[in-house]
């Protein structure tokens, strides 16, 4: 096995463990809550990085796919099967073994659809929707694609906000925990903070490994070739329309999974998760991360989401991410954290140092 390739992955795992130990030792485990949330947002960002940075297709609608995951599991798992026992559908769900029991915040046992089932349903819906809208809109390029995905995002947001079943402006709360297996639960229970942090970290590591493998493969090359010249890629036998669609669906799946897990972790979901501003935030983070840079996107995704969730940006949150996007597009349209930019930065730093040295020598 190629050890060098996985060195950054081991560093990532190491960093997660160190964070956890430090927060536990300092009795500051509540920091892990925002880190866990950031990690789930990073799943969206990583998928979007492959779509935008490598395949060169923008999406301003990924919050919609996140919301599809979150709302699907919220609607399904908060359906009280015990109360609806008379209904044939509810009885069928129970008889098919698709339900599970948990105790809610008030200590009352409730029977509901298993989150594993709702995860599968959410994935099916997301894949279907991503295919259906992807086929027509991925024919568009540049600004037109941005507009179309934005339109899609707005539609989903309005649906979420205007539907009784999705709780309108209040969203849906009181979700049961998602029992993965054995003693592992995705839930906001403070007693389970550490394991939830590790569950999220595990998913991020898995996502990075899978996507890095994809990028380093024949398929990854084909995606990058689409970014380089769609016409030439086609002439080389790359089915560009198909690959664009597949990577769009893949990134939607990442967003959906993040939505399902984070919604169980938070115990609820609200319309702000489907807001277009969320999509802008994701795009902004991919851009500062260097566009075609999984590790940069991950680092920026953890840092910026964490700061935002801890409230460091206060009421300027939207301003910050909108501003980041504008600055990047003006000055670094190919993304910020790039080798070239780093090089010119170090060069600039060296020049500065030399200048200061010269001054010093002149003065003395």
């Amino acid at each position, binding site marked *: 096995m190629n050890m060098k390739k996985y060195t950054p992955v081991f560093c990532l795992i190491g960093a997660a463990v160190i964070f956890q130990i430090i927060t536990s030792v300092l009795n500051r485990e509540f920091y892990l809550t925002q880190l866990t949330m950031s990690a789930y947002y990073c799943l969206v960002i990583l998928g979007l990085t492959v779509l935008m940075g490598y395949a060169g297709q923008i999406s301003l609608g990924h919050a919609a796919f996140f919301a599809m995951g979150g709302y699907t599991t919220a609607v399904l798992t908060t359906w009280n099967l015990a109360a609806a026992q008379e209904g044939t559908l509810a009885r069928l769900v129970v008889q098919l073994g698709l339900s599970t029991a948990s105790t809610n915040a008030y200590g009352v046992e409730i029977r509901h659809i298993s989150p594993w089932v709702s995860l599968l349903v959410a994935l099916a819906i997301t894949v279907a929707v991503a295919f259906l809208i992807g086929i027509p809109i991925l024919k568009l390029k540049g600004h037109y694609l941005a507009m179309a995905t934005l339109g899609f995002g707005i539609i989903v947001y309005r649906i979420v906000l205007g539907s009784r079943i999705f709780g309108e402006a209040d969203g849906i709360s009181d979700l049961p925990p998602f029992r993965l297996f054995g003693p592992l639960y995705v839930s906001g229970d403070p007693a389970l903070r550490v394991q939830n942090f590790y569950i999220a970290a595990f998913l991020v590591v898995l996502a990075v490994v899978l996507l890095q493998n994809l990028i380093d493969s024949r398929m990854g090359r084909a995606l990058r070739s689409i970014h380089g010249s769609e*016409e*030439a890629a086609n*002439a*080389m036998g790359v089915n560009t329309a198909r690959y664009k669609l597949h990577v769009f669906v893949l990134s939607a799946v990442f967003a959906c999974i993040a939505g399902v897990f984070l919604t169980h972790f938070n115990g609820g979901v609200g319309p702000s998760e489907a807001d277009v501003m969320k999509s802008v935030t994701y795009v902004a983070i991919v851009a500062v991360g260097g566009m075609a840079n999984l590790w940069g996107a991950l680092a920026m995704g953890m840092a910026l989401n964490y700061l935002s969730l801890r409230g460091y940006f206060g009421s300027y949150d939207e301003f910050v991410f909108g501003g980041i996007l504008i600055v990047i597009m003006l000055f670094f349209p190919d993304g910020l954290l790039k080798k070239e930019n780093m090089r010119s930065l170090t060069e600039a730093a060296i020049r500065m140092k030399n200048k200061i040295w010269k001054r010093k020598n002149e003065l003395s």
Partner: protein
Amino acid sequence: MKQLSRSFGGLRAVDDVSFNVEKNSITAVIGPNGAGKTTLFNLISGALAPDSGEAYIDGRPIHRLPPYRIARHGISRTFQNIKLFPHMTVLENVMIGRHIRSRSGFLSAMLRLPGSRAEEQQIQERSMEILALMGIEGIAGQEAGSLPFGKQRIVEFARALATEPSLLLLDEPAAGLNMYETAQVSELITKIRGRGVTVLVIEHDMSLVMNISDMIVVLSSGKKIAEGLPSDIQKNREVIRVYLGEDNA
């Protein structure tokens, strides 16, 4: 090629052009600027759909297929205004050429299954061989977009060759090259013909054309005005008129 036509608005860029290309031959397409040569290539490679007419390779129709399917039928091309993948290395550009000769998909790539790893190894080795054949293995790791123009043409040539085409379309492969590089390209074209590739080449450099081609097709204003051996074309009145007319205008 049978009666291929394509118009842009009222302009008949390629007008009822028919010709045959012999297997393992070098055929040159010549004609003044705007004659429709590049458009003809776009029709054959599927970049543009013909308004009417048919195209066949080894008896199989290709005129209704999208470009990526045509590529899988063994037709590869270069572009008059070079279209490399600028942010990928020279080696990676050529490795894209191996795309249709390999098959691992999204899932096996993400999981790095043994099959896809072995295939990746093969793609890389084969691509290095092609770079060596073209004499550019020394720049394998350089970013394609940062290379000088002449080198970019060779890389594009290598990328097209990596698909193992049975028919290779070269659109002005020597344009913008110096004499030394032109001679190199000329040598490469004859070399790959020796490996069983059929070549269709658009070129303005007459000495290059006369030297390497077995047959010449002459286009003017979208129409085929002559076809024949280099020696015949040199003597053809119509061709001389079109070319001299251009020069004198």
